[in-house]
């Protein structure tokens, strides 16, 4: 179903809509508030769109509509995407009161609407009965973990219910982004989540390039892929090591920790920062790249590749390891779909969705052909899938490096944004699909930035995964998800 077909079929329904197509793959539709429930139902049941997010934007008050607070009206935007054809649809309606609840149509709508309403009251559930008790964990955890509160309701041994309370780290990044000049905004984007620094930097570069309708050269695109995949490598190595560590298989855990250190040091040699910060900038790249660095990357990865494979094989051959991970923490495909999960955790549950294939950016169209999936959706499947993505990352770096045949000079160009442009981009980070909406404002700044971070929806998946498991399995399941608190809280 192409973007024109969507428009035509909506016209047939006599909805009287104002629509606009921007940036080739974004359809913005203005509707009335009472229509949203009907349209959301059509989007899900008839069009089979994916629900992405809901957020508000503010706009100067136009004539003929009732003024709201401070002469501005608040618009609720409800975003869907068609992954088969690769376009986004945004339904926006003006509301004087709270946004219209879509809870019974889309389960995850609740999360976004709570944020819009500033509705943070919460009452912890209580359990009663024989052998029933609760375990409260956090916000300060044992070990080196970010803050978050977990409340387990346990009956005997198995977990009956898990409530995850986050937002301890809320800093107001979206609001901060509105005060920073567009030339420096990539620094703030990179600090939304440190583990996915490059992916966020890439999202910013794509956003600005989409707004100004420019493209970069093939060499730079290839180099960006190298950086993105290097980041994927050290993250998945840490994840695999973490799973092994929680099982108690310390040899594998320590080795993966060492490999990740090797990749970090490689990143430091290539870009000057262990997290490749300030590397990707709009219209170019902020690092000098030459033959020597290319050789360094190839040599380091070549020496590591066989070892990584042997260690993965070692863990898959260990009975004590398999005993813990198999059939643990299962999220069924239907539940994963319901929770709008993305990324590795969704692909482990048989959801065939990868941004690199469905909304290809840079050179992924040529490099990445198919999507790796597993069917069962347990810890073991996530472990296997992460190992598979890790092996893929090695291949992608090799392939991407073949596109780079000349030295690349660092190149940082001035960005000049005009007012009132908007765009949506999505990037596959290590955790899943990141969607960024940007609306430009005055003085070369953005007037609205919205992040739909992968962790935001994926955290809910974990409450499902732990049900029926014993409490000692929780760290294992948590590590197999390994969601970021920082990007969730923003």
């Amino acid at each position, binding site marked *: 179903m192409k973007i024109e077909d969507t428009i035509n079929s909506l016209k047939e329904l006599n909805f009287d809509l104002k629509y606009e197509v921007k940036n080739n793959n974004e359809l913005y539709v203005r509707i009335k508030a009472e229509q949203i429930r009907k349209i959301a139902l059509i989007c899900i049941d008839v069009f089979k769109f994916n629900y992405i997010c809901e957020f508000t934007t503010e706009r100067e008050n136009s004539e003929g509509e009732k003024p709201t607070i401070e002469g501005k009206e608040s618009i609720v935007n409800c975003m869907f995407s068609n992954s088969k054809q690769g376009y986004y649809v945004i339904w926006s309606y003006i509301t004087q009161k709270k946004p219209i609840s879509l809870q019974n149509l889309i389960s995850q709508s609740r999360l976004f609407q709570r944020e819009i309403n500033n509705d943070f009251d919460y009452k912890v559930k209580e359990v009663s009965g024989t052998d029933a008790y609760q375990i409260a964990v956090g*916000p*300060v955890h*044992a*070990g*080196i*973990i*970010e*803050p978050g509160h977990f409340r387990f309701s346990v009956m005997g041994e198995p977990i009956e219910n898990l409530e995850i309370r986050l*937002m*301890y*780290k*809320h*800093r*107001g*990044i979206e*609001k*901060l982004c509105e*005060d*920073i000049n567009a*030339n*420096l905004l990539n*620094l*703030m984007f990179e*600090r*939304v*989540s*440190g*583990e996915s*620094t490059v992916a966020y930097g890439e999202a910013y570069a794509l956003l600005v390039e989409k707004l100004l309708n420019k493209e970069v050269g093939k060499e730079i695109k290839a180099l960006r892929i190298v950086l993105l995949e290097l980041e994927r490598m050290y993250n998945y190595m*840490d994840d695999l090591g973490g799973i092994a560590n929680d099982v108690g298989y310390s*040899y594998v855990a*320590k*080795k993966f*920790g*060492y490999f*990740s*250190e090797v990749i*970090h*040091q490689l990143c*430091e*040699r290539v870009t*000057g*920062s*262990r*997290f490749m*910060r*300030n590397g990707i900038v709009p219209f170019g790249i*902020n690092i000098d790249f030459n033959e020597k660095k290319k050789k360094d990357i190839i040599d380091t990865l070549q020496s590591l590749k066989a*070892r990584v494979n*042997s*260690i993965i094989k*070692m863990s898959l*051959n260990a009975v004590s390891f398999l005993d813990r991970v198999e059939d643990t923490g299962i999220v069924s495909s239907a539940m994963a779909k319901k929770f709008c999960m993305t990324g590795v955790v969704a692909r482990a549950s048989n959801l065939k969705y990868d941004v690199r294939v469905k909304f290809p950016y840079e050179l992924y169209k040529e490099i990445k052909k198919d999507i790796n999936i597993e069917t069962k959706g347990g810890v073991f499947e996530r472990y296997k899938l992460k190992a598979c993505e890790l092996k893929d990352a090695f291949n992608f770096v090799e392939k991407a490096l073949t596109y780079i045949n000349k030295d690349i000079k*660092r190149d*940082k160009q001035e960005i000049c944004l005009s007012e009132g442009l908007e765009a949506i981009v999505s990037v596959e980070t290590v955790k899943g699909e990141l969607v960024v909406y940007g609306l430009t404002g005055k003085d070369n700044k953005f007037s609205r930035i919205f992040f739909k971070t992968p962790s935001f929806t994926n955290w809910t998946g974990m409450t499902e995964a732990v049900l029926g498991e014993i409490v000692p399995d929780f760290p294992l399941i948590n590590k197999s998800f390994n969601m*970021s*608190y*920082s990007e969730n809280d923003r």
Partner: protein
Amino acid sequence: MNNIFDRIKYGTETIKDPLYNNEFSYGKIVASENICNNCRACMSVCTVGAITINTGDNDENTVSIDNKKCIYCRNCVDICPKSVLEMTSDYKMSELELVGEKLREKIYKIYKRSLVLRVVDTGSCNACMSELSALHNTFYDISRYGINVVPSPRHADGLVVAGVVTKNMKEALEKTYYAMAEPKIVIAVGSCAFNGGIFKDGDGVYDVLKNILPVDLVIPGCPPSPQAILFGLFKLMDKI
């Protein structure tokens, strides 16, 4: 069995001296004197306001950079038309605050060998946390120096804080601090912890750490590399 073969084949992977000279690391930004023409281009690209330019008596401009504020993005180095600023690879930037100096003497009169830490993240971007956990990998292997991270504040000598203090984490941070036994050390890891860094003006941010707890050691960086953290901790333990 496989473990043993693998171990024999590749040998030990721990580095003997973790504080080796790393020429690729980012580090202190130094300014050469008598060249700056006060164009203030560097100040305009600094998101955290770490750069100050002072004009002396005979129209000499001296550029100074606050290490504890800097997020080491290199934008100022790149933009300077006269290349006054230069980034060195000197990661050894940690400094003991005045209180820390006294506290160190007090603590190491009693305990000479080890340092037991408790880590609290109050609003970092999780890169600092990632680097703190990298200290435990086989390459740096921090536990051989007697530095350990413990799950309970009751067992800890020092509190490691990463990130700005958000409104929601303020209470948890204070409770952790007061649960620790005296004498206690507070270590700020990363530029945001001590000075707020890039998140300073966020509407969810309560305050920066230095206004809430007495900070004894600051490890600057964004994020500080494991080497930089180790250097700071060694300085505290009087090993250097």
